[in-house]
């Protein structure tokens, strides 16, 4: 009875295409995320106002002070304006007041010649999340630069945050299209009695589910692929080889299959849209936030990292990042693919068994 599955597949797909508004809206959301979030977060910080002062008495400027001052003034990331706008103070108290008044983001106090063993003291505005770490590393690099300069080699080239994040958005698009577009369409069909119409036909129930998962998978895949292309255009990521390209398609497909099956198993438990939508929102939040799309998962507390282990999005994001950003092949993403396949198999089984129960 593959004919029945094909008929259901075609019908679902025809309905999907007949509503371009929904298609566009489900794609607009991830693109907005990519463009707005990707640019708002993780931008390179420059022109950070920084106060520099030497301890009393400062009849003479120490060599450390002069060279560091020069270093801080010229410190910049490649192709970017200087990181710091250095303001020289001659009174430590005044400098600290400037910090409190928000005129500067940090104060560097250099020791005077009499107290050579004293530390270089750094005061930072800790209410700001991002700049203290940057000031700290900037000052340290300048101090270290005195003796042994650190040579940084970025083995995958310069990767901007939007490129790092963009890969996650591909997975997000798959998830959103499935959970919201696909799941709601399925529940609507049930509300309209269309599913009941299937049941009095000789089509096997497994064929019905096969048709539904099939059409959902293709829809999700197309959404993921579209965002992948958008990602290339907007963030400038590059796919290095044809092999990589096909590997990406494979990952997108397995992810789509798993997420769609999960959706079918969840959606089959609901008879109306509202409660399903809230559950879908819950799932998309928890799975997306723990996927590592925003921030590396190693920064998470242990209890949260447990979620990433069973989170298919984590493996999908990791696999895509390995291929797209690092140009790695099957030998590295093999584990991710196996995890995704296991997830898909479990989700399909769950989808079929829970769906059947509601048919009886």
């Amino acid at each position: 009875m593959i004919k029945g599955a094909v008929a259901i597949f075609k019908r679902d797909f025809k309905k999907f295409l007949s509503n371009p508004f929904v298609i566009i809206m489900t794609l607009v959301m991830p693109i907005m995320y990519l463009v707005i979030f990707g640019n708002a977060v993780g931008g390179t910080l420059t022109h950070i106002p920084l106060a520099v002062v030497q301890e009393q008495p400062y009849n003479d400027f120490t060599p450390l002070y002069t060279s560091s001052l020069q270093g801080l003034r010229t410190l910049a990331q490649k192709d970017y304006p200087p990181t710091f706008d250095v303001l020289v103070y001659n009174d430590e108290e005044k400098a600290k007041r400037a910090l409190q008044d928000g005129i500067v983001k940090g104060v560097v106090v250099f020791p005077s010649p009499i107290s050579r063993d004293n530390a270089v003291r750094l005061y930072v505005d800790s209410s700001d999340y991002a700049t203290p770490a940057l000031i700290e590393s900037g000052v340290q690099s300048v101090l270290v630069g005195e003796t042994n300069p650190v040579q940084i080699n970025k083995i995958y080239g310069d990767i901007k945050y939007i490129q790092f994040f963009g890969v996650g958005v591909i997975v997000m698009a798959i998830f959103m299209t499935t959970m919201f577009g696909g799941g709601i369409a399925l529940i609507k069909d049930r509300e309209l009695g269309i599913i009941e119409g299937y049941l009095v036909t000789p089509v096997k129930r497994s064929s019905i589910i096969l048709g539904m998962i099939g059409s959902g998978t293709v829809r999700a895949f197309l959404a993921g692929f579209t965002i992948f292309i958008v990602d290339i255009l907007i963030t400038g990521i590059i796919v290095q080889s044809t092999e990589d390209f096909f590997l990406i398609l494979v990952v997108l497909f397995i992810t789509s299959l798993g997420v769609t099956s999960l959706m079918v198993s969840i959606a089959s438990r609901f008879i109306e849209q509202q409660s399903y939508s809230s559950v879908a929102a819950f799932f998309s939040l928890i799975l997306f936030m723990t996927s590592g799309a925003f921030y590396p998962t190693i920064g998470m507390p242990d209890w949260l990292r447990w979620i990433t282990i069973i989170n298919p999005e984590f493996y999908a994001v990791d696999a895509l990042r390995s291929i797209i950003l690092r140009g790695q092949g099957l030998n590295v993403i093999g584990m991710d693919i196996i995890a995704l396949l296991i997830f898909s198999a479990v989700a399909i089984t769950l989808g079929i068994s829970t769906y059947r129960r509601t048919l009886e």
Partner: protein
Amino acid sequence: MEPQTFYHEDTRPHHAPTDSIIRIDHLTKVFQSKTKSVTAVDNITFNVTRGEIFGLLGPNGAGKSTLIRILTTLLRPTSGSAYVDQYEITKDPEKIRSIIGVCPQNSTLDVELTAYDNLEFYGKLVNVDDRILDARIWQLLEMTGLTDRAHVRVQTFSGGMKRKLEIVRAFIHHPLILFLDEPTIGLDPESRREVWQQITRLNEEETTIILTTHYMDEAEKLCRHIAFVDRGRLITLDTLDNLKLAIPTGDLIEIGFEAMDERLLPEIRANDQITSADIRDSKLFISAKNGSGVLPAIVAILAKYSVPMTSISIRPPSLEDVFIYLTGKKLDEGTSGDTKSSNGGNRQ
């Protein structure tokens, strides 16, 4: 649950007459919930003859739809058995589904698709050969007069058009049996007549039709055999004429008047053809075995007491009268033109 297909040496009950296309044997369905159990179908036994239009009548909630759902393999019975053609409903549900057409009470059309697409999709589900499918679709659209709307979305259709489309959709694969659950519920009189014509036409193509309804006129118009169902039980099953004979009171005579002389009542009742005579709301209600035969005698008595008549009506008992007689209650308040129950909603 996917019941396996077993092939028994003989799946027919030996006592059943072969011209019965449906044989229901002590069928019971109990819906269990935590707090209570409801017996929707209570030990029902009857047969349906091949090729007829069979009416399943009863008030809302009588168990008609549950019975249909069991026969169309959507529900499993709690006990008892039923055969559709030669297949047992719990053993060969897939075989049954390929020989039946079902038009459920609540529409299952996809209103976002066109009429053609709806028929094409369903045709594929019920395994109509691709080579003849297109021709068959146009034939059905012709039958319903929807040819010019073939590529219009169903959501723009009127209730009657949707209903007709859904009925022919159930018929796309020439099923042996067509189940129609409340086919004219919520339709205007004109659409109802069209749906009735449709049903009659389909029956002429040698399809057995099982029809549930709570409209008496519908059953009177269409059905050869009628089964009365109430509270899950089969009250009676017979032909329309026999059912009417079941009422001992015979024809009903109503005479309107302006002023009544009470003395004529005993005199009317004295006629041994007349079973009862009563006065209500300025009307004289008389039940008589042979209505038209006794009418002259009644008119003569009225003339004798100089009672001026404003109206006379004489009618044979309707199915509704039979139902009231058998169950002591009305089938539905206002059986004709009633749209109150039309938005039956999700009853399951």
